[in-house]
């Protein structure tokens, strides 16, 4: 797998081995997962959405790669199966926060119907509509 023609071609396009890019992907998940507080779905939706873009497609891609191993390559790689399992678990752990952020932004949009207010809420600027959208859920 590491010295195949496909791998060499990928290296030609990417400059670095694709495994290094994968390692960077997981590192990036760790950094974006550590940054910010538990309430960042409200304070920094951009960070949560970026985390979601990082985690969810990556998890799905690694599952697809494992399926390809069985169907196309015809042999299995133990470490790849483990990483795919962990990635799927991460998708499960991450999606609720991403969902909270999207719900929050939808509520801000529902209240304000204003793109600048939504834009500011996305980048973490406070406004009356954003506060209302974030607080109602906590009271009820």
């Amino acid at each position, binding site marked *: 797998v590491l010295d195949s023609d496909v791998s060499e071609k990928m290296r030609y396009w990417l400059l670095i081995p694709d495994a290094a890019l994968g390692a960077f992907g997981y590192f990036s998940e760790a*950094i974006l997962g550590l940054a910010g507080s538990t309430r960042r779905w409200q304070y920094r939706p951009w960070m949560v959405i970026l985390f979601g873009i990082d985690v969810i497609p990556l998890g799905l891609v690694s599952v697809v790669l494992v399926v390809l191993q069985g169907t196309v390559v015809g042999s299995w790689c133990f470490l790849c199966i483990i990483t795919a399992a962990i990635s799927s678990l991460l998708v499960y752990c991450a999606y609720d926060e991403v969902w909270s952020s999207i719900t929050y932004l939808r509520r801000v949009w529902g209240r304000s119907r204003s793109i600048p207010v939504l834009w500011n809420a996305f980048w*973490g600027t406070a406004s009356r509509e954003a*506060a209302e959208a974030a607080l109602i859920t906590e009271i009820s």
Partner: protein
Amino acid sequence: MWPRIAEILIGLWLLASPWVLAYNTAVSAWHMNGFVCGSAIVLLGVLSFWRGSKKAHLAEIPVSLWILSFAYFGSAHPAPAIAQSDFLTALFLLNFAIIPSQANLPPISWRNFREEGRPDGRPVPP
């Protein structure tokens, strides 16, 4: 402030890496690029610790993009070790540079909003 400390360390690696990974070649564009960009990253990371220049770390984003494109377009296949190192280092740097310095606290705007209180006077949950 942990992203800033990581960036300063990465900047030091950018400074040092041409002399580690391309030690047997004459001083080249890689050495110059590593020196200039590494110094810039260290400087911007340190500047972020002052209140007046706390957003300085955002200026690391264009610097990282420059390192990324210099490594990608400035090297033939197979890429030399220094190009691969610069490429990967720039990716790491981009990741750190977007993290706010006080990411555990609410943004300034929300902190001010909480101090002013809600319009209806009820206490605001943290």
